């Protein structure tokens, strides 16, 4: 049996630091919102001429007065991703750009993807993203509140907040782009992290009924160990699937799968070191679950 409980305090401290640092990053550095949430234009361009590179493209685009322009390689040497604000929301901007690029590069390039999101739409997408995440957290809260005693709910929700905040913190730290698919990833993380926590909690509750003389400090450790192989196997297979998406699923899914990979790792960690320690700190005992059982009987 591994003594997970020996490090409860250490990891609680670490998690607190991670959360504080993430929050500071989110407040002061902020998130790198993609055009979905910030508005603007994105062009994925494939070149068939080696003259077309990041610097020549940047030159061209900077001459066009498009506001902030970012040009990056996208996956391999011939693909580029160009993003700009399009702050005046010009109508025929794509045609203008094409005409302009034709002058310098002939037709040795091809627009593979064009996305243009107006300021109104991006504001709405951001709003619905925030609502979606808040709504999912609220639903999880209600679900776990129905299924478990309040101490468990608190533990699970703290673990969820930890996962979401720290994942976003990593995105802020490395200035990774937040787009629509990241919202999907965060929601899936919420589901996964909850899933992982609930499996351990289920066992904790079962053990609380079984052993009257074991302290919660020990009991959580027993429960973690009993479910440990399941925790490892499930997170391993999920990570294998996600790594396959990350490495082979193409550039578009990179951010999505990275967010999910982080989420699975944090989710597994928080089920053990946040959700359970909340139970320990709230001194959950056999009485906590038996009281509820009695009430259910009365009803």
């Amino acid at each position, binding site marked *: 049996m591994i003594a997970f409980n020996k490090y409860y305090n250490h990891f609680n401290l670490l998690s607190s630091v991670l959360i504080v640092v993430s929050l500071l990053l989110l407040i002061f550095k902020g998130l790198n919102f993609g055009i979905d949430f910030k508005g603007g234009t994105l062009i994925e361009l494939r070149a068939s001429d080696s003259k077309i590179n990041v610097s020549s493209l940047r030159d061209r685009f900077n001459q066009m007065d498009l506001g902030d322009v970012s040009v990056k390689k996208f996956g391999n040497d011939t693909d580029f991703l160009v993003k700009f604000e399009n702050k005046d929301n010009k109508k025929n901007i794509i045609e203008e750009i094409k005409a302009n690029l034709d002058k310098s590069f002939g037709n040795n390039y091809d627009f593979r993807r064009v996305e*243009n999101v107006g300021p109104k739409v991006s504001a709405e997408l951001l709003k619905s993203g925030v609502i*979606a995440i808040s709504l999912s957290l609220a639903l999880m809260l209600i679900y776990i509140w129905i299924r478990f005693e309040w101490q468990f709910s608190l533990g699970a929700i703290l673990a969820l907040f930890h996962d979401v905040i720290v994942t976003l913190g990593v995105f802020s730290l490395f200035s990774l782009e937040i787009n629509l698919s990241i919202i999907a990833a965060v929601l899936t993380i919420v589901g996964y992290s909850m899933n992982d926590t609930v499996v351990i909690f289920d066992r904790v509750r079962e053990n609380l009924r079984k052993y009257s003389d074991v302290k919660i400090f020990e009991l959580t450790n027993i429960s973690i160990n009993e479910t440990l192989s399941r925790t490892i196997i499930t997170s391993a297979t*999920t990570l294998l699937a996600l790594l396959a*998406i990350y490495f082979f699923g193409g550039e578009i899914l990179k951010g999505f799968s990275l967010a999910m990979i982080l989420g699975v790792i944090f989710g597994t960690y928080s089920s053990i070191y946040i959700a359970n320690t909340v139970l320990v700190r709230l001194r959950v005992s056999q009485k906590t679950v038996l009281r509820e059982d009695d009430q259910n009987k009365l009803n």
Partner: protein
Amino acid sequence: MLYFSKLRIVFITLFSVLFILIASSNLFKFDDNFFDKKINLGLDLQGGSYLLLEIDNEPVIEQKLQNLTTTIRNYFKEKNIKINNIKIDNQNIFFNVSDNDKQSVLDIFQDENSDLNPYYPRFKSHQLEIEDIGLNFKVNFSRQGLIKLKTSSQDQAIEIVRRRVDEVGTNEPNILKRGNNRILVELPGLDDPMRIKSLLGKTANLTFRFVTNDENDRFGVEKLKFENELEEATVSKRIIISGENLLDAQPKMDTQTNQTIVSFTLDRVGAKRFGKATSTGIGKQLAIVLDGKIISAPVVRDTIASGSGQISGGFTFQTATDLALLLRSGALPAPLEIIEERTVGPDLGQDSINAGMIALAIGFMLVIIFMFVKYKIFGLITNVTLIVNLFILLGVLTLFEATLTLPGIAGIILTVGMAVDANVLIFERIKEELKDETNNILAFDGGYTKSRTAILDANITTLLAAIILFFMGSGPVKGFAVTLGVGIFTTLFSVYFIARLFTSIYVSRNKNKEKLI
């Protein structure tokens, strides 16, 4: 938990085979009507254009209010009530009447049978709201009045958009209403939406009006620019004929001048008015105005009574074709703005499909190898289940003709990774049971029973997340929610029916074997 009746075994087998067949139907082309359902590929996979258009209703509201001022004035004139100082400011109509008439004006506006101010009994609201603000009356559209106005201009606009898109002839366009002032246009297979965008961006409001130098024209005048933005002309506001009077418009080559022109045919009313105007206006310049710009302003040389004519304005064949198309399909009630555009080229779509399939294959292989190494014979059972699960998932998606997107493929891969969870929970529980239980059957039974709540909890939480995503997400992300959500149900089915069936067969044959798992 381990007992299966014969009937149930037959049912499970049939069900699985059915879905495997449905899923594999995507690989073949059935020409007959026997089974023609298929998984749709999202625009991000097959390539195409997604355009979200917003109707700018401001000019419509302005126009309606403008008309209303005349209606109000005439209406009360008949009732011998004098309306003074009527004016429009910031989408409100202001006017005043003498103190004696105030009450009767209010009564008319608030009468539920009033023909001046329609009443919508369903919403318990009038079209217009009137407010007595001391000196003046203030009249504006009520909430319901505005909604009616917006939906009616949306209805008109979507019809025009559909006609224009159809005229260009793309395959299977998808044109839908969004809210009460937006239109969504999905154009599969279109990798350069430039032409459609420019066609949808034009209101195509065509009018024929005389050029005048008379500043005191009875209808008022306005200065308009020519298409080339250089010249200007003063044009009367009196409309001789408008786009509504057109029956047909076609691009043509003028054999005499060798110019491309647009020839048009007028309806009866239009032909009559055009004939009259050209007979009285010989020698005058007739301006052809499109969306506030003069295309050309030819001098009337002859009476045109035939009801047909032509527009010349230095067109190329393409611009003439487009103008004819716009004129044929009619004017939009209000300008449209493209507020969101997402276009994916077909080769990127194919690349995404390939990458998604490779990732799926590799993810699948990794999980299968992992499970086999970890659980041996039971890993094998899990793996067979996983494959059947994948087929059932694809079968369900086919049956519902769901749209598969790139994130949707990611959802399938993720389902593969998470689908083993239920089996792992069961197997681990059985291992624990076997520690104090020597009877294999009892231990397996206990494992299944005791792991049930955890499995249910785990899947419900993921399902909740998927449901929210489905309702809040758009396009590709919705595709992810669909595969993730459907995946949960197919996983539970395959774990509790297929995997359990195999497990029960294996366990009953090896009842007395030690270290079964």
